[in-house]
């Protein structure tokens, strides 16, 4: 028997008593009202049981009772951090179901809005991830920038957080004068802050020690769990709906899909997932710049649609690349102005289900980081 095996055996006989602790629903770093029932042995996590539903707001019930345009505000409230991106798959699904052609300018504005919101979402994700690791200041740097993005979105839609801006067949309003300059300024500011945070947080030695080789998610496990977005890409799978299942006008832009590289640790660890988000901000900046350059100045922002939206009997499943992964809507229409069934495939709901799998055997402090690296939003988990 080798020395290592002997030690392992000895260790396995040295089991101490296990302790079950409840993390949440009120806990500073569960990102909302998630409850994790954690079994720990000393500091080592041996079992994690997530309990959801503390924010179950009966979204799908509401959809059955509302008319199609009325559903959009509820969709904002699913993933309230990236509301613009949320609305997109729903309106695309409706347009596909009803066969509506939308004007070109609308596509451009939608792309810019979605990418701006993607940056804002990733800023929160990286900021709170830093907060989980104990670094408070990057959080505020990111929030300072996010505020500038929010100002643009507010000028466009009138709301700071939940926009209700994408409508079936178009948009709620046209761009305001000076929109292009604002966007270009944001891009500059985002790049500047990213460079700053690279030094302060991402390549900080303590941060690397904390996050590298922690919470490793192999690619096959990630696919089997149907993870998507940065969680899947962090494991090295080049899968992005904007390229793989090109929707809207994403084929006109030149951008890369950042994937995890295992630069400082193992492929698919927390650091990789976080780094994918940071790199995606840069790619979003590129898309915004190109879209601003190509965007037509003139044009309608609403195509002609019937006043009362009554799609034909049928069903459609449409998904789009949300900042957190692919958000899908399964809409079943029964021919009236209210849907028969709307099912939202919550990205965070699916991504979170991988937690019990990848957090076993790590320290309790790592569990918090793994949770943070998955970037969940509880509104989407519980719907």
């Amino acid at each position, binding site marked *: 028997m080798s020395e290592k095996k002997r030690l392992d055996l000895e260790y396995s006989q040295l089991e101490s008593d296990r302790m079950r602790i409840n993390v949440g*629903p*009120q*806990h*500073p770093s569960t990102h*909302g*009202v998630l409850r994790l029932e954690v079994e720990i042995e000393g500091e080592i996590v041996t079992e994690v049981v997530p309990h959801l*539903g*503390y*924010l*179950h*707001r*009966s979204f799908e*019930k*509401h959809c059955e*009772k509302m008319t199609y345009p009325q559903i959009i*505000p*509820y969709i904002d*409230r699913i993933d*309230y*951090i990236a509301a613009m991106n949320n609305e997109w798959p729903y309106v695309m699904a409706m347009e596909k179901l009803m066969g509506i052609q939308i004007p070109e300018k609308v596509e451009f504005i939608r792309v810019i809005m979605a990418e701006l919101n993607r940056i804002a979402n990733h800023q*929160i994700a990286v900021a709170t991830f830093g907060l989980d690791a104990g670094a408070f200041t990057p*959080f*505020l740097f990111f*929030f*300072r920038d*996010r*505020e500038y993005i*929010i100002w643009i979105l507010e000028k466009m839609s009138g709301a*700071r*957080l*939940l926009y209700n801006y994408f409508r079936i067949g178009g948009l709620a309003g046209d761009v305001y004068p000076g929109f292009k300059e604002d966007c270009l300024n944001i891009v500059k500011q985002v790049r500047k802050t990213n460079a700053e945070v690279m030094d302060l947080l991402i390549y900080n030695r303590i941060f690397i020690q904390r996050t590298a080789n922690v919470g490793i998610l192999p690619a096959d496990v990630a696919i089997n769990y149907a993870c998507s977005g940065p969680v899947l890409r962090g494991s090295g799978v080049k899968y992005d709906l904007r390229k793989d299942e090109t929707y809207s006008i994403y084929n006109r832009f030149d951008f890369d899909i950042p994937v995890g590289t295992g630069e400082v640790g193992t492929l698919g660890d927390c650091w990789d997932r976080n780094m994918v988000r940071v790199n995606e901000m840069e790619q979003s900046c590129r898309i915004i710049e190109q879209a601003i350059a190509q965007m037509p100045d003139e044009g309608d922002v609403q195509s002609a649609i019937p006043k009362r939206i009554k799609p034909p009997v049928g069903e459609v499943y449409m998904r789009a690349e949300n900042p957190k992964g692919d958000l899908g809507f399964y809409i079943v229409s029964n021919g009236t102005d209210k849907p028969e069934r709307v099912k939202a495939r919550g990205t965070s709901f699916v991504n979170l289900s991988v937690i019990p799998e990848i957090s076993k055997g790590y320290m309790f402090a790592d569990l918090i980081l793994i949770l943070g690296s998955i970037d969940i939003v*509880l*509104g989407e988990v*519980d719907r």
Partner: protein
Amino acid sequence: MGLLNKLDDPYEGGGIVLGKIEDLLNWGRSKSDWYLHFGLACCAIEFMAMNASHFDFMRFGTIPRASPRQADFIMVTGTVTFKMADRIKILYEQMSEPKYVISVGSCSNCGGPYWEHGYHVLKGVDRIIPVDVYIPGCPPRPEAFQEGMMLLQEKISHQAIFNKRKKLEAELEK
């Protein structure tokens, strides 16, 4: 004894000494409010923005505390579901007196957009815990948070510590 009575009389006039002490104590409580680090839903994101550099909630003297024992007030930021309602009750009971509640957003005020068909949504957090200040909006803007915080501070600074009954009667007469 006329002078003394004027200075410190629990039954007549406020009393200068007690009144001043009361002012000091109220000042301390109103200027130093530690809130429970606790977010429920969409409003919590706006509350995070509120804490960040642009709006800087800490200007009011608020500090986040993760433990309810050390918190002075709880901000119910978002939709309260039935599954969560039991926990909010527990959290509120764990807080040490004097404690206050700010209900943020339509959802926790009255159920918000989920008032009609939300089978799993509590229609207003005031059904389970007493609320001091309501902040409307879905979600409220950071300016509304500031207003709500100032209202809470004003409420605390006029609270009666001594002569509670007397002040209550005086208010009722109004």
